[in-house]
């Protein structure tokens, strides 16, 4: 009952603060629009390519290219499974003379690397083929020349005969037809440049770097604003004395924390929905999985952010001191959230990401948006977020003892 009362009050205050509301809803849209326009970068990443029924030569060529690792699979099903498990980033399958390329495409920069590598490898192998074909045709030519010389010798021997001219003409004709047939043969090998078909698991050839950032960016906005605004709100309660006064009533400390959670949870749900709708309709980003699952994960992240904000606000004495937590707490989250590929970092740096809430929500939302993973397969990420939430909430309820001893 009191929890609901606190929730209502916090919501009322929030919805009357039009500027803060606008910040929460307009700022993310603006920033995302800007980013979708600006971001076009390619970073060096390591890619794993799975190949099925591809010549050894091509495998070797691909493997020789920097930042590319090749794994061979016997069947396409095996390779697909590996793609699903994120062991490889693309599959190359040879179909007769043509190539079928399937990209996970969750990271467009990786797709670009694979495309480049494949193109180079194919060119290299076809050059080899050309070389051998050329060799063949040169040996063929040599043979012809030898025949021709032999014939000329014959001609010399039979010079007395009057029919020689006709015979020479016939021989010449035969030689010329032979040589044309060789050239057509050479031509046909060089013309048989394999047809390449591209498939994308997620998105299409226009999917950019932004698509990969978006799921994480979405979480970041939710985290950032809920963290900051809830932290400020509780700080204000403390500095204006309303918290003391609230605690001078029989209200339970947990009711205060839960009241805040409910109100900011509602706000986070609205914010996530707005962000999702904007990205789908305005930016044309494809959401493969269930949108409701995206909202649920972001709600969970918002509650973690809220608990975090409330906890840290007890260490701040003013709004400005609360702002000082942004570079300390919020910005590092971005670095470890997966926006910058973690697999290129040193191991000890990678380990830091395990204590970053944004990483777990980013992983889960990326899976849902790009791979269409069900929310029930994200048990681990959800569990970790829940652990964050429970621990921080308990700390908050206990922490309020500072202001009332019971």
């Amino acid at each position, binding site marked *: 009952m009191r929890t609901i009362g606190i929730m209502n009050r916090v919501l009322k205050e929030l919805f009357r603060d039009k500027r803060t509301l606008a910040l929460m809803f307009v700022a993310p849209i603006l920033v995302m629009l800007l980013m979708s326009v600006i971001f076009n970068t390619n970073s060096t990443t390591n890619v794993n390519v799975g190949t099925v029924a591809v010549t050894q030569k091509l495998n070797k060529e691909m493997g020789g290219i920097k930042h590319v690792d090749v794994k061979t699979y016997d069947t396409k099903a095996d390779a697909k499974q590996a793609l699903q498990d994120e062991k490889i980033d693309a599959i190359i399958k040879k179909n007769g003379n043509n190539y079928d390329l399937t990209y996970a495409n969750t990271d467009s920069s990786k797709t670009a690397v694979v495309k480049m590598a494949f193109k180079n490898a194919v060119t290299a192998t076809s050059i080899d083929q050309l070389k051998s074909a050329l060799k063949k045709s040169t040996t063929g030519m040599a043979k012809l020349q030898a025949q021709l010389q032999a014939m000329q010798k014959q001609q010399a021997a039979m010079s007395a005969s009057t029919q020689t001219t006709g015979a020479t003409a016939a021989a010449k004709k035969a030689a010329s037809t032979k040589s044309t047939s060789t050239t057509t043969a050479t031509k046909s090998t060089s013309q048989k440049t394999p047809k390449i078909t591209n498939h994308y698991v997620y998105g299409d050839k226009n999917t950019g770097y932004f698509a990969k950032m978006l799921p994480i960016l979405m979480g970041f906005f939710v985290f950032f604003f809920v963290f900051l605004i809830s932290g400020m709100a509780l700080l204000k309660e403390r500095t204006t004395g309303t918290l003391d006064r609230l605690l001078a009533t029989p209200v339970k400390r947990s009711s205060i924390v839960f009241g805040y959670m409910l109100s900011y949870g509602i706000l986070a749900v609205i914010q996530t929905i707005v962000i999702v709708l904007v990205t789908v309709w305005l930016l044309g980003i494809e959401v493969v999985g269930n949108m409701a699952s995206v909202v649920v994960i972001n709600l969970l992240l918002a509650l973690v952010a809220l608990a975090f904000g409330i906890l840290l606000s007890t260490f701040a004495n003013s709004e400005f001191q609360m702002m000082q937590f942004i570079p300390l707490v919020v910005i590092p989250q971005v670095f470890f959230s997966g926006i910058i590929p973690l697999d290129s970092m040193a191991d000890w740096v990678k380990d830091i990401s395990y204590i970053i809430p944004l990483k777990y929500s980013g992983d889960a939302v990326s899976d849902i948006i790009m791979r269409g993973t069900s929310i029930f397969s994200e048990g681990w990420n959800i569990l970790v977020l829940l652990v964050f939430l429970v621990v921080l909430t308990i700390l908050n309820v206990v922490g309020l003892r500072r202001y009332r*001893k019971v």
Partner: protein
Amino acid sequence: MTQAIIELNHLAKKFGNQTVLKDINLTLNKGEIIGLIGPSGAGKSTVIKVALGMEVASGGSAKVFDTVMPNRQLLGRIGYMAQTDALYEALSGRENLKFYGLMKGIAKADMAKEVAHAAQVVDLTDDLDKRVAGYSGGMMRRLSLAIALLGNPELLILDEPTVGIDPALRRQIWAELGSIRDEGRSILITTHVMDEAELVDRVALLLGGEVMAFDTPVALKQQYGVDTIEDVFLKAEGVE
């Protein structure tokens, strides 16, 4: 024998190494107004915090309604007004009153009546639906007092309630406090305004973490041989 509402026995309070309260003995009886006076930093607010259970006594005991504080449930029977106004400025006066009323545990059915009564006492009825952000300092103070009066608590703890309130309204408020006392409810009040100290039943003079004097205003003036409580205050401070 009158019933003791607040009983502080040899109360001591330390914050780290700093001793704020050394030895406080104070009894507030049913139907009595006690004024707590003393210079800034004497520990008036700390006494109030201990009485409310926001701080725990380091020594001695603090009992309210015969129960050792801190006790959460008892807070429903206490009306508290802090030194700061402690209002939600984005809300209207009525919303503030309703919110705190809900927190105090006032039943929904009684809420409208309670809010109307409290607002009427502090003369805010006409401004109840305005946002607090648009209130003057005096109006905020009055709203803050109205919140403390909500639910007819048996004990009122008021920390400098009349700062920034004009004389006419101050007189009105004191009249209301008087009638609250006559109903058999008790009031603990801190004040800087010395002529207000003349209006209380007993004055506790707090100095250096101890109660220097605790008696009726008349008895105190006689004891110190002066005409006003202000002189008592000055003389006591001078002695110290």
